[in-house]
């Protein structure tokens, strides 16, 4: 079990835990903002995993490449990728935040469950049907009249 206590092992462990915490947050949170934060954590964990994939212990920054130093450099590609991913992530989070504001304004609640049930009701009303999951009878089981066999 040695390798778990190397630097990479610990870093990976941290990154993975972060992802799982984030996802767990997504599962248990009801508040919209907490959900968003969980998403941020999840994404951060994933970014860490990605950046770790190019990490080499005692490697040098890729920018100081001079060809004969003999030092191993960290892989630059994941770093570039992570930068992009972070940017995208921030964009999405900003969008989410603005949506949260609008939803809060309309529904007057930050609770996902309340919003879901209200949303379902609205959709059902739009479509002119009773919302799913209400206590209505199960699917119509109508016999053809006068049948007996």
């Amino acid at each position, binding site marked *: 079990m040695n*390798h*778990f206590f190397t630097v990479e*092992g610990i870093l990976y462990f941290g990154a993975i835990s972060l992802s799982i915490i984030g*996802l767990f947050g997504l*599962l248990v949170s009801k508040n919209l903002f907490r959900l968003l934060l969980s998403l941020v954590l999840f994404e951060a964990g994933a970014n860490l995993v990605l950046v770790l994939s190019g990490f080499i212990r005692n490697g040098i920054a890729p920018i100081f490449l001079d060809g004969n130093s003999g030092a191993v450099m960290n892989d630059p590609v994941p770093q570039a990728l992570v930068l992009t991913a972070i940017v995208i992530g921030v964009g999405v989070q900003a969008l989410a935040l603005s949506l949260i504001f609008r939803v809060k304004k309309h529904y007057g609640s930050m609770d996902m469950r309340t919003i879901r049930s209200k949303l379902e009701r609205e959709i059902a009303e739009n479509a002119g049907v009773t919302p*799913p999951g209400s206590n209505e009878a199960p699917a119509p089981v109508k016999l053809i009249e006068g*049948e*007996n*066999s």
Partner: protein
Amino acid sequence: MTLLDHLFIVVFSCLIAISVVRNLPIVDKLAPVLYGLILIMLVRMASVAYGGDAYLSSFSLDLLGFKMHWQFTALSWYFAIITLVAALASAVFMSGDWGRQYREGGGNYGMLQLALIVNVFSMILLLGSGDLLSLFIGWEFVSWASFLMMVLSPSKLAKKSAVKYIVYAMTGAMALMVAIVMIYAVNDSLEFEQISIVFAQMSGSSQVALVLLLFVAFAIKMGLLPFHLWQAVAYAETPGPGAAFLGAISSRMGMFTIVLVIVQFIGLGGLKSVGTSFANMQTLLAWVAALTTIIPTYIALQQHDAKRLLAWHGVGQGGYMLLGIIMFDSIGSAGGLMHVLNHASYQAALFMTVVAVMYRTGTSDLNKLGGLVTQMPLTFLVMLIGIIGLAGLPPMNGFVSKWLVYRSLLVNGQPLLFVAAVLGTLGTILSVYKLIHNTFLGQLRLEHQNVREVPWSMLVPMLGLSVIVFITGFMPGLILPWIASVQESVGLPVIAHHLGGIEYAKGGLDMIWVSGILFYGFGVGALIFYFLGGKSKRVHQYDNYAGGHFLTSDVRYHYSNNFYPGLMHLIGTWYRGSFQWLENSIVSVMSFFSVFFENIYRAKQPVMLLLIGVVLALLALYRNLGVGA
């Protein structure tokens, strides 16, 4: 170009022609002519029904690597001629006055004409199939064509039952598809011959599965137990002549495929090799057939709507056909095959009489009719001939085929099946008597005093069909050569026949003699009746014994509702609706799963699943690193 190609071209042109002119008045005259034309094309191919070679089509298709071709054997021809005669009769029946009334009542007459020719076209296509794929396509065509016919009626119930039908039909089609796939997967070929080749190579459980799948597919079409629930209501709700046509032949396409696939290519040996020696597939199918003769017949006995009563009998009579063919001997299979034609003739005639009564009185409710024999004597005659045929009494054709089936059961030593068949026949007698009694006999209602006989455009096909019912009963030898060719072409033992019936070592049947004796008896009876004794006096229907009361026209003096109270009191408790219950419980189980999945979609479980997935994946990564390090 072979004759078969000509037939296909003619049928297809007729389809186009009728779909073009369907809303013009000329369709009334054109449609019967076109069916006559197709009939002539079939007659030109008649050599196949007298032992000639099968016709092959020169068309063939190769789509996605599946090859399709078409052929016409004696079996196809036999079913095709029945189809065409039924279609011709229905077309004549609906043209003219009935059609006018239908149009005035808001019916879409052009669509009905179109539905009829579409049905004929798809049936010819199915009957001409030369391999499993063309069979499947024809099969689907036939299903959808009958659906088209059924939905034409504006009533809500009709549409509901049509949907029910199409769900059943789709189930059958899917079962057929799985069976075809099982066959295809072995040798990558869709030829009919592959069925027997593949069947022989299969393991026991696959054989069971294959036979059951094929049987389910065909049984649904034919309305055999336990798939009988869709048929009666759907047929009964179809507009008049359409019901006559569908009731006559549509569900018999299931019989055609049973003969073609199960009898010809799996065969007796195949069926017997599946299962134990005590209960093999043949036994199972025979019992399905027997129960199909009994249960729907007794359901028919309960109906108080004439069309529905007939439709339920249509389901029941399917049992006789299967019962005969499943015996695999010369007389039984001849009986089963012949019953297809016989049933088609009298069933079409009977449906037409009921439609004729509806045409004049506006109802087919058996509790609201009565005494019409004085107003519509010819319709009564047709119905009388029809019910004698349906009940299987001499001298009509239903007797011949049922006699052959009974004979075969006797020879094969199947007492229980024999009793079951007789039970079905007796139930039929009771039920058809109720039909004719409640419609034509007894007291004539006040509102029907002015009802007249139906016009000739409706009478002619009815009378024509009843002539067929009688002639083929009197001289079954007219039909038996066709049956013999069919038996030869599907590899069954061939029946020895002559004009009057069959020759058989341990007691044959000669219908010319039988009918002769019967008519001699009637003749003597008539002599005794008319020449002995005083002259009878015709009295009014109210001049009747009423326990001292005087009868007036406002008194309903007709016994129609709950016609067999004693019997129903006894067996009424047996009508538990078990099959309906079965159907409903399937629907309930579906609902349960549906709600279950609906909740899955609403709940957060997706994220839970994601969580599990991610944890696993990351753990995998972590371990992988560990191994690498």
